[in-house]
């Protein structure tokens, strides 16, 4: 129940908190910028595309910049959440729903009907929106734009413009500023400029796949697809370097950094999905569901996606490995057995060394998911997956009538269901409804792996400051991952949760200085207490000794 009712029924002034004239002009400029893009979608042929693209993106960026400066620099430094639950756009009001529908539609067109954005089919020239981006694409990679280039550019623009806004909002908080500068840098350089420039290296006898260095498997679910691996191997030293780097990232670099700093090193400092969520999605962070039902759903969902992604990747790799160990030692059987052994040793190690930290449901879940994965491995080793045919129409309501081999069926279904629908359409399109981290919380298999490690083998935690918590709930409210932070803080217990991405906003909004993100020793990291610091020391001894 809100005390502030009917705040957004008026279309003329939907919000109680009015914006200034300067902000209205800035908003109008940004909307004109977007309108140019919209005109391009409807095939308005601009005379000089480079100029109009520059005007459009320039207006969007400068509009956001001017708006944000007016919003934050005119006030003293501090927490700026006034009216978050009143504003139509950030409280699931009319504007919020409208934005949600718009974004969702955009993602559906982008993934499934790129021709409506003007993508030239079968060698035809681009038209519409995609053509508008041709000049920029040519400038960077020397090729015409694709729908992915359009998307990548808009994505980067969003992170930069709203990243600037976020940095102003938290201009008193250096953790927030550095973190935001970091995601802005990694998006612009690693996800956008470097891969585009690297495309210039490609020639008839040398080609590298589009490679965002920081985008690891399993978030990058196509990392080990045959075409990609072949391309890397054929690209000699450079390609092999990238391929090996990819594997080293998963098995060495990521576990090391997650041990030292928690998964935040990736999720809220480097990752592109996280980058968009933390910048453009910041206004929606409080919309995530904090209930225990949502938490339960999250645990089932995200672990299932991980199993799905492991199984799919194993299936895909196993089909392009040979059977004959004479030709090359790394055969399908060697691969499947080594995966099986790896998973078994990993699970056995966790169950033995961390048995005291696993509760019953975690224990059961781990065993269940392990058995499921191993069952698939056994199945793969006894059947030639390329001989099992699947008719996609059973799974797509008849939309897709192709027949696939089993491995490519899994691969396509993963790409469609997880890669497109979950991470894109729901993950981002539903920002204004479900909050800005739905994908990261419920779906990302990379987050699952780092999360398990963060819970069990990491120095990271959010420390609670003795008995200072007043249970106000600002921390839980602002947690984009839906963690009920207060439930721990009011018990004086450190927060050690696999889903925490370490954005640090709970700590920032706490009015009593209770929360601090820290890397410290593993001992005493998890500290459930009955009685908080500040009470009778004898009583604390009596009740906290267990």
């Amino acid at each position: 129940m809100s005390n502030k009712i009917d705040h957004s029924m008026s279309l003329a002034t939907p919000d109680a908190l009015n914006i200034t004239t300067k902000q209205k002009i800035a908003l109008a400029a940004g909307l004109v910028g977007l309108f140019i893009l919209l005109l391009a979608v409807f095939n308005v042929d601009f005379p000089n595309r480079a100029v109009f693209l520059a005007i459009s993106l320039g207006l969007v960026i400068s509009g956001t910049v001017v708006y944000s400066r007016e919003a934050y620099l005119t006030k003293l430094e501090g927490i700026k959440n006034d009216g978050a639950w009143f504003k139509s756009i950030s409280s699931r009001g009319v504007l919020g729903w409208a934005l949600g529908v718009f974004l969702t539609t955009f993602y559906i067109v982008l993934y499934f009907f790129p021709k409506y954005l003007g993508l030239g089919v079968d060698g035809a020239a681009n038209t519409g929106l995609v053509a508008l981006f041709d000049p920029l694409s040519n400038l960077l990679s020397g090729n015409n734009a694709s729908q992915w280039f359009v998307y990548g550019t808009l994505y980067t623009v969003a992170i930069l413009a709203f990243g600037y806004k976020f940095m102003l909002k938290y201009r008193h908080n250096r953790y927030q500023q550095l973190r935001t500068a970091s995601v802005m840098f990694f998006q612009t350089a690693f996800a956008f400029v470097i891969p585009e420039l690297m495309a210039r290296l490609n020639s008839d006898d040398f080609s590298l796949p589009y490679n965002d260095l920081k985008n690891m498997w399993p978030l990058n679910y196509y990392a080990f697809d045959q075409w990609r691996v072949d391309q890397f191997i054929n690209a000699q030293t450079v390609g092999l370097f990238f391929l090996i780097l990819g594997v080293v990232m998963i098995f060495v670099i990521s576990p090391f950094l997650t041990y030292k700093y928690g998964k935040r090193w990736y999720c809220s400092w480097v990752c592109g999905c996280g980058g968009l969520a933390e910048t453009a999605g910041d206004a929606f962070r409080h919309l995530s569901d904090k209930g225990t039902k949502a938490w339960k759903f999250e645990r089932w969902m995200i672990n299932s996606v991980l199993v799905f992604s492991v199984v799919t990747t194993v299936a895909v790799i196993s089909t392009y490995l040979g059977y004959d160990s004479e030709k090359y030692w790394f055969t399908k059987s060697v691969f499947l057995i080594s995966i099986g052994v790896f998973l078994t040793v990993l699970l056995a190690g966790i169950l033995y060394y961390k048995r005291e930290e696993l509760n019953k449901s975690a224990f059961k879940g781990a065993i269940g998911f392990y058995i499921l994965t191993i069952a698939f491995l056994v199945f793969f080793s006894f059947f030639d997956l390329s001989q099992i045919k699947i008719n996609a129409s059973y799974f797509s309501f008849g939309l897709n009538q192709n027949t696939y081999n089993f491995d490519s069926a899994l691969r396509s279904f993963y790409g469609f269901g997880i890669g497109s629908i979950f991470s894109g359409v729901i993950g981002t399109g539903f920002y204004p409804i479900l909050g800005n981290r739905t994908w990261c919380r419920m779906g990302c298999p990379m987050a699952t792996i780092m999360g398990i490690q963060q819970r069990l083998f990491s120095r990271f935690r959010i420390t609670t400051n003795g008995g200072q918590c007043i249970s106000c709930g600002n921390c839980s409210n602002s947690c984009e991952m839906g963690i009920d932070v207060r439930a721990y803080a009011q018990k004086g217990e450190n927060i050690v949760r696999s889903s925490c991405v370490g954005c640090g906003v709970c700590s920032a909004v706490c009015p009593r200085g209770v929360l601090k993100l820290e890397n410290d020793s593993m001992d005493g990291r998890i500290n459930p207490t009955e009685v908080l610091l500040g009470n009778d020391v004898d009583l604390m001894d009596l009740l906290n000794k267990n």
Partner: protein
Amino acid sequence: MEHVVIIGNGISGVTVARHIRKNSNKKITIVSAETDYFFSRTALMYIYMGHMKFEHTQPYENSFWKKNNIELKKGFVKSIDTASKTLQFAEGDSLQYDKLVIATGSKPNKFGWPGQDLEGAQGLYSKQDLDSIERNAPDNKTCKRAVIVGGGLIGIELAEMLNSRSIPVTFLVRENSFWNGVLPEGESAMINRHIKNHHIDLRLGFNLKEIKSDENGKVKSIVITETEEEIDCNVVGLTAGVSPNIDFLKSSTIEINRGVLVNRHLETNIPDVYAIGDCAEQRDSGIGERRPIEAVWYTGRMMGETLAQTICGNRIEYKPGHWFNSAKFLDIEYQTYGWVYAKPRENEAHFHWKHEDDTKCITVCYDTTNNTFLGINTFGIRMRHEIFDRWLTEKRDVDYVMKNLPEANFDPEFYKHFEKDILAAYNNKLQTA
């Protein structure tokens, strides 16, 4: 099965209920006339400011109470018959108890100002107060100005709330500097300036004479005692402190003074009747340097933690540890550990350091006879409760504390640290002194 009835569903009542449940299978009923479920009243301001909705201030999900077999009863206790162990409700029904816990909290002070009960004149304590301010000050067209009377923690929160909706605020403070009965001069002066920076019309050294009514019985204006100035306003915030909410006990045999009188075991004069939280008053004197009545969130919680032991058969004394507290003045966070009085007492001295940006400062209090560290106030720099609690127990001397201050820092990572500046200023002061 023994029936424990708790009057009041605030932090004290809820804590004692939770801990009794952990230790026993007694029947537990929590009575409240305010809300259906426990909420954090410290967060009321954030609802008005749009940071949260009311349901977000509820620390436990609604299913929690049933799951833990704690019964909730909505009702207003009119009187208590301790002989027959019966509660009479204003609604007409009654309830039997075996053990009774009074945890009814506080109510805003009203000092008999003319017009203090008009529509639009209110404190900020209960859910009903929040509803009232939402009714009378939804925006700056309905409420063209608000006047706040009383310069304490709730007054400044109310000012921040109204400010968030662009409602002009006049803030009448009786003292000649904000909260200077508690804060040392340098800190109080810094907060004065911070309040004014937020465009709040802070009037120091002024008292309320009367509140005038319009023809509908609503607040129209106030008059200042000292100047006879009349200020037009639509809302008057009465935030001159709180006192125990125990009027319903006046006809009972339970002994009361300002609050419900309890001994160190939180027992009243009547067997099986206890009182905890804001409404309890220590019978003989406050514990240590604490006051007999402490209207603080965490003391309510600690009394609840303690009393649950007694009710479950392990009778123990209420022995709070070192004093600590915290608050936030608009954008400036405040924490305190140990005792720092507004003015150093006999054999005490203060060391004060303030950053040039005028939003951060600390005051350290120590004993001049043996240099023992007695307490610290910190503004704009977060510090660790655990460290200061330990240093106070170990009776560290002030030099040790100043040298090891970095260990106590609790600011977020990458924040600028000021311990070197503080230590330099401290050493400098010793040399010149």
